[in-house]
């Protein structure tokens, strides 16, 4: 009896506390800078090209084999505009398979890949899982538009 009253007292007290939930799709919680969504590639503003040289390090280290990298000779290197001999040609990441372990970021020697730390990196639901395979343009677009300051590095 007393315990039941205690329970009911507890719930009555809680009634006057502030609700802790938020209206999610319209209100977004602030996410920390380190937040790890999905990997994206980073754009080198200075040379106007991606940092990525297509060295396959991340592809090899990926535990789930979600990446496909194709390397090419850098045309800008031939023109003398860049110091990168090789540059990324094609890059696919299957977001449907990626397990966001940050290993690709850790093994990258050029800081060319980073984890998206914006809400755009989380709200990625698609109607077709094929749409979750991101190509080079999509991977670079956020960094190009300076929408993201990639968070976590190691």
């Amino acid at each position: 009896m007393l315990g039941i009253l205690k329970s009911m007292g507890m719930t009555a007290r809680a009634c006057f506390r502030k609700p802790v939930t938020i209206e999610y799709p319209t209100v977004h919680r602030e996410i920390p800078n380190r937040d790890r969504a999905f990997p994206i590639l980073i754009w080198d503003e200075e040379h106007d090209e991606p940092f990525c040289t297509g060295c396959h390090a991340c592809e090899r280290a990926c535990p789930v084999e979600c990446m496909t990298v194709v390397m090419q000779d850098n045309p800008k290197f031939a023109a003398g505009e860049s110091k990168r001999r090789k540059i990324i040609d094609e890059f696919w990441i299957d977001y449907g398979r990626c397990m966001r372990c940050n290993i690709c970021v850790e093994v990258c020697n050029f800081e060319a890949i980073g984890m998206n730390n914006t809400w755009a990196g989380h709200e990625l639901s698609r109607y077709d899982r094929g749409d979750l395979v991101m190509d080079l343009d999509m991977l670079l677009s956020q960094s190009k538009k300076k929408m993201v300051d990639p968070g976590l590095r190691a």
Partner: protein
Amino acid sequence: MTVLGAPLVNLNQHWLTTLLGIVALTLVMTLAVMFATYYERKVIARIQQRLGPMRTGAYGIMQPMADTLKLVAKEDLRPATADPVAFELAVFAIFIPAFLALIAIPYTQDWIVSPLPLSLLYLLAVSGLSFIGFLMAGWGSDSKYALLGGMRAAAQLISYEIPLILAAIGIVMITRSVDLSAIVIFQHKVPLIVWQPLGFLIFLTASIAELERQPFDIPTGESEVAGGVFIEYSGIRWSMFQLTSYVNMYVFSLLGALVFLGGWEWPFGRDVGWGYQLLLTLAKMSIFIVFYLWVRASLPRLRVDQLMSYAWKVLIPFALVQIFLNGLVLVYDLPDVALLITSGAGAAALVYFIYRSVRVKPRRPLEMVANSVAARSVV
């Protein structure tokens, strides 16, 4: 004790008026139930520190509309192996009695669809019908969960019907009337809760059980029988079950408000106009509703055997004690205050008995081992 006569306040007893009353009542009740679902979700959300529905309309006020639309538009399924007659009719077997109960309730002095001289008896009788519907639904669904739920519902509803009726008999003994209007008018000076605290406690617990709400929601227990009798129902049929359960909540809240809290009569008397009377009735009804919601959000569910023993070993004996005490007072023509004393003592005894019997038995507390383990010389 004086017995107040029952000046029945009739509408013009024309069948058309009655029919209009019934239609209006059904519509109003449907809206009221929609509001109740919204209200319940909001209240429980606040208790749980959530926001509750917020997205349809301002503060989610249109949420019940959206729910209704969704439920009505949903595909109505019937399992292939279900018994079609029992499955389909079960809905009505539960739905109709709940609405039938509404016509005998005096909302104000004049607002009553069908004034019956036996309205209290009628109300209890009608509300006791619904267990047939639960059995039909449980049997007709051809699902083991539904069958279990139906059996539990039947056992529970019948068991708790008895203390409910016995508590009502105590009231009837004092007021010497089974007409609700008369009972309300009897409480002109003092609401019956004062004279019958024990009966009130019994009524309150038994009504929660009749409503199958926590902690007595055993027939529909989500975590055990996964919805019980409703497991195979969907769409409009399921929503009718829900509608019924909320209508029942209103019925019992109104009944409690009228019988124990003085309804529209106490404390302002009969002459304040129907607006105030209605407001008064609704205010008293909402006390019960808030209590039901609050209990729902606070308490876990009893087990079947505990539920049954609570009805048969606690509530029914105490209800009989109440009747006996009332009989003593009436036979020896003791003053009214004797009712309060005896029933109050009975209520105290009930509370003490429950306290004693359900008290968490003192057990050896956990032993806190700080160091003995390390002393076991682990390599």
